[in-house]
């Protein structure tokens, strides 16, 4: 018998489902309250200052925005590169991409000094600003992925999914280039002003986006007791390993290039060998927890076929990715700007000194709230629309696999429902 792919809403009526939604709801309310407090009092209640102008909200927001474009990769591999195994995962990939981007943008907008002027940001454009391009790229991404999902989920339009999917893939590459260039185009600061920022951000998006995808996928399938075969787990594990290695490669090249030029020795010593939190976050957070250990889990045979280890590796990639974002965004600002090369500079405005920063509970609350909102959107989405196959058993994802067990799985699920 031929194995058939059935997409169905999750029942979403268990205590567990509502408990998770309730928890996310609490986090969202706390995030909104934090944003309200920050806007009402002014940003002086946060850890952000005139020295560290972008803080914890930006770490969360940029991470989510980068991960959003990466989450779409799974769908792209299927539509653009014709890998059939990823086809059943495509709708979830698109949904996650939209949810993560909206979550990230909510954080970014709510941290603005004037979030009430969102309409201004949407109607006044300075086209020389990479930020303005990004506003167009983000809105365009949401629209294109929505259309892409439509093509994927409406049988009549399936034939267009490759064309729209290719367009979405190109758009997402441009989008992450834009996000990386927010930093890459900043000539004034030692840590930024590097063309490699854009490709590094693209690779980070592959890795962080897939890590979140893995956790959401395995979490939902375990939660709904739908079958998830080890073929797909194994494929995702190897893919995650390749992405982690690629990020590590790009970050290594970035630092090696900087280390070669004497003018960058100061910032490199500050990040790689400083007596500060950034050095710890870089080596322990990004390199060890976020790269080396997940790399071992993803590539060593001993961890083969294990969904649990894949989730562990993915959680570590996310933790390492957040650490890396913190180092890039906060560390890059904390290192003093070179105002007068050759001079030691001092002033009442903290010139020439390392800027201190302690994230406030409000900034963290806003960031976590945005993250929670993204996950809540996914959980609501899979209940309302048919994003997920009833089964991801081996025979469904791999046509060469024996067919019987998948039919049994579908029958089993239908019996339960």
């Amino acid at each position, binding site marked *: 018998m031929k194995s058939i792919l059935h997409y169905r809403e999750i029942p979403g009526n268990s205590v567990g489902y509502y408990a998770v939604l309730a928890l996310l709801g609490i986090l969202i309310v706390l995030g909104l309250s934090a944003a309200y407090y920050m806007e009402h009092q002014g940003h002086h209640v946060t850890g952000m200052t005139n020295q560290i102008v972008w803080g914890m909200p930006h770490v969360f927001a940029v991470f989510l925005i980068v991960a959003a474009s990466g989450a779409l990769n799974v769908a792209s591999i299927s539509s653009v590169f014709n890998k059939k195994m990823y086809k059943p995962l495509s709708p979830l990939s698109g949904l996650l991409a939209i949810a993560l981007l909206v979550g990230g943008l909510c954080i970014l907008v709510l941290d603005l000094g004037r979030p*009430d*002027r969102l309409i201004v940001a949407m109607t006044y454009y300075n086209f020389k600003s990479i930020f303005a391009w990004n506003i167009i790229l983000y809105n365009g991404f949401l629209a294109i992925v929505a259309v892409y999902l439509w093509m994927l989920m409406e049988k009549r339009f399936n034939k267009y999914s490759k064309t729209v999917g290719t367009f979405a893939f190109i758009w997402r590459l441009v989008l992450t280039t834009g996000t990386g260039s927010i930093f890459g185009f900043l000539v004034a600061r030692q840590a930024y002003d590097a063309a490699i920022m854009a490709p590094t951000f693209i690779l980070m998006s592959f890795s962080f986006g897939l890590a979140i995808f893995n956790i959401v996928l395995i979490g939902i399938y375990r939660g709904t007791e739908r079958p998830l075969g080890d073929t797909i787990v194994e494929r995702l594990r190897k893919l995650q390993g390749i992405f982690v290695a690629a990020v590590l490669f790009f970050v290594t090249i970035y630092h090696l290039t900087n280390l070669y030029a004497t003018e960058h020795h100061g910032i490199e010593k500050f990040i790689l060998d400083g007596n500060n939190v950034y050095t710890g976050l870089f080596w322990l957070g990004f390199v060890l927890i976020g790269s080396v250990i997940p790399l071992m889990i993803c590539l060593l045979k001993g961890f083969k076929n294990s969904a649990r280890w894949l989730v562990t590796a993915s959680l570590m990639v996310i933790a390492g990715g957040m650490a890396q974002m913190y180092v890039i965004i906060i560390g890059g600002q904390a290192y003093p700007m070179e105002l007068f090369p050759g*001079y030691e500079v001092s002033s009442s405005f903290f010139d020439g000194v390392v800027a201190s920063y302690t994230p406030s509970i409000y900034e963290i609350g806003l960031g976590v709230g945005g993250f929670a909102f993204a996950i809540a959107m996914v959980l609501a989405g899979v209940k*309302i629309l048919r994003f997920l196959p009833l089964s991801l058993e081996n025979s469904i994802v791999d046509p060469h696999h024996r067919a019987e067990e998948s039919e049994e799985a579908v029958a089993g699920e239908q019996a339960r429902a």
Partner: protein
Amino acid sequence: MSENDYRNKDNKFDEYRRSFLGKGAALAGAATLAPGVILHTIANAKPVDEPVTSKVRWGFLIDANKCADNCNACVTACNEENGLTGFGRPKTDAQWIRKVTLRNKKTSHEISLPMLCQHCAHPPCVDVCPTGASFKRVDGIVLVDKHICIGCRYCMMACPYKARSFIHETITDQVPDVPRGKGTVESCTLCVHRVDRGEIPACAEACAKTEEGPAILFGDLNNPDSEISRRLASESSTQVRADFNLDPGVRYQGI
């Protein structure tokens, strides 16, 4: 459950789905537009018709040799003129002009000078501003349009001179000539309100009254007969971070 049951369930879901998506879209649209609509009604923002000409380019020539370490006259005058009152929080309080001490790493020689917005001809803050709130007047003065600044702070990330401040709290007792507002970015306006009245900026005026004599000279860089142009033509001067090629309107001597 049979396929028929599924179909019935699907129909119910379709209804639920449609109403959910419809309401969701309406809500998102309202959330985006409402604050702006309210804002536009209240603020009724309208560009001021400034009689500004590109024939002039305003700038400063600052002589560090005449700037005493312990003198803060320019900073005090600026704060008073523009109503910049601190909240006793140095990390978040606004500073439009600040005294900076430079110590030569090799010789330990110390120099004191005022640092402020350099009013670049090619300002990075203007390049990066998404809404165009950061702008340069044709006479070279770099300003922030308070009506369309969204408070993203990208200009602060981009400025190589750390010249900008974000307003971190509610401001009261503002000076009528100098509108400011919580949640927006600001910096030295070159006392544009005074310049437009034909006066010189407050810092330059205060500096001229000090014992050491005028360390800050204000004038038109485009007019070859102005004092600032004549001195720049006959004496050596430098631009801070000249390597960025931003062509700042503020030039220094003695560094």
